[in-house]
């Protein structure tokens, strides 16, 4: 039973990795990392809300003038 917290931790890390990977595949980065970054480097600025972040990333992938969502053959 002693190992279970360790296993839990590992499972959490793995599932976070899989979730982050799946999200990044469709152009959605890590919101927590973004919010943390803004708080750390620009304490004077208000980070975007999670929803704003989502829409910002959606536009960055496919939006006007951007072609990064274009897939390979």
């Amino acid at each position: 039973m002693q190992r279970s917290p360790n296993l839990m931790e590992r499972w959490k890390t793995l599932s976070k990795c899989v979730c982050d990977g799946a999200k990044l595949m469709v152009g959605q980065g890590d919101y927590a990392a973004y919010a943390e970054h803004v708080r750390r480097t620009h304490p004077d600025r208000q980070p975007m809300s999670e929803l704003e972040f989502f829409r910002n990333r959606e536009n960055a992938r496919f939006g006007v003038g951007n072609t990064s969502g274009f897939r390979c053959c």
Partner: protein
Amino acid sequence: MGAISKHGPWALVGALGAAALSIVAVERGEVVNALWLVVAAVCVYLIAYRYYAKFIADKVMRLDAKRETPAVRHNDGLDYVPTNKSVLFGHHFAAIAGAGPLVGPVLAAQMGYLPGMLWILAGVVLAGAVQDFMVLFISMRRDGRSLGELIRSELGTIPGIIALFGTFLIMVILLAVLALIVVKALAESPWGTFTVMMTIPIAMLMGIYTRYIRPGKIGEVSVIGFLLLMAAIVGGGSVAAHPVWGPAFTFTGTQLCWLLIGYGFVASILPVWLLLAPRDYLSTFLKIGTIVGLALGIAVVAPQMQMPAMTKFVDGTGPVWSGQLFPFLFITIACGSVSGFHALISSGTTPKLIANEMDARFIGYGGMLMESFVAIMALVSACVIDPGVYFTMNSPAALVGTTPETAAAAVTKLGFAITPETITQTAQDVGEHTIISRAGGAPTLAVGMAHIISSAIGGKAMMAFWYHFAILFEALFILTAVDAGTRACRFMVQDLIGLAVPAFKETASWGPSIVATAIAVGAWGYFLYQGVTDPLGGINTLWPLFGISNQMLAAVALTLCTVVIFKMKRERYAFVTIIPTIWLCICTLTAGWQKIFSADPRIGFLAHADRYATALAEGKVLAPAKNADQMAQIIFNDRIDAVLAAMFIGLVLAIGAFGILSCLKALRASGWTALESDPRAVPAE
């Protein structure tokens, strides 16, 4: 002791790979198990990754773990974010893997599995993965700039413009050929057409869900979408069998062509959240899931290869596509061996997300090895089905006719015995009216995948489901590519015209947007229509053009890499990129030349045009043309294709010349002349 523990396990991997390759390659009159191909491929990948990629990383690039990457330097939490290596690998792989590695190997299977397999392995190790890795490295050292910008800054403005224009042409051909694959897969197939059409309302529903009901919840909306998709596949079977709805969803190739053109136009001006983004979730996750599923399926089922290692069609007389092994095999399999398109991805979002320079080998070289593995699986899928079925599906109607009897007779005459009953039975098994002349790779792959997966899950009763699942999976991400690609083309058109008329650049206003979209759709729609009405089946014309253009872009990207190596004063390692560049130039130039000037009308565009022109002058009408106007159209199309091939040749020659000049200049320079952003150490925490 050190050397043995360090290299010993790798020597074993090498020995296993060599053994597997010899089992695959040495013809002993026995059937080979597909697993040997897989084992051979994986061993080759491991050895290449451990030794060759490491050599490139250490000696050619001198990757530096302590040097700041763009993600660290410009970290903004949005575009530039230091990202976990495995997470980024997934992102990069999802971006490079598309329909290419699935279709090319299927078409190449007409020469047997061995030539295709050897080219996939040699190509990826020495050319494809090197290109992806090198471009990623170059972009990473230059703030994640794009291929066009890199060529402009390292080779000059003119080569930069030439490369951009070439990219636009390639994009047009790519979209046309992808759309053609969908048309070929869905023509006369009410089941397939219904399920693929249902993806549009399903995606819109998902779009509304993520926009208004549960904003941003990608995971749950993808699960909902997936369940609806499965329901659409099951429902498609009933629709196809329905006396009214079945015929209502049965379209000819030409009708589907117009539907797709209309779809491309509308879809690319709709807001992204409504259709494109949600369908992107579905297609991305389904793609990854299916690739994993196929790998598991092959591992569990361990199917036997039915196709011979090498067929007599290496001499260029094959019915699927024309031309000899050299150079046409090397342009038929582009993605999976080497794909110029990856240079765009490797200089896109990926270099902005790398946390540490040392990760570039795993992501750049490793990601391409993974794509190559997908190509090997596609090759396996095409070769585990009855070769008679393979040739029935992939030969043009002009050769095999349209009934099971004519097809069985024609294919048997080719040397691959098959009965009309087998053809009818296979069509019934997969829930289609007919499997004759369903060129384009997707249906063949779908039959192969259905064969493998149904052996593991569901048996013969599930075969029709898996067949349509495979068709849906391919059509889904092809449609996403068509949609996103049309948008990309539209922005390029707006930029190009904007050079002359600045107001045209206004991407938010409706007028220019609609005009530019119409130009983009018109460009690929023209080639699509030409392909659909092509007497030789379309794929025969468009796929080589696509292959030539894609390999040509790879040659351009590798030229850039060579120039950068010279500018870094490491020219003694330049063979790493020079060898693949020269090989690709030889292949694309020879293939391009033959496509234009070959006297065989099955290969040469001009010879084909001449045949029709002669007939027209004599007042004759050749199939599939029905009147003199259509004859004139075919002649015109052939000449356009010839001009296009000539432009690709000119492009390679021009960039090659600029590349050589830049290399000579760098050689004469006394020191480093590459334009990296200044090296800065990672700040201590």
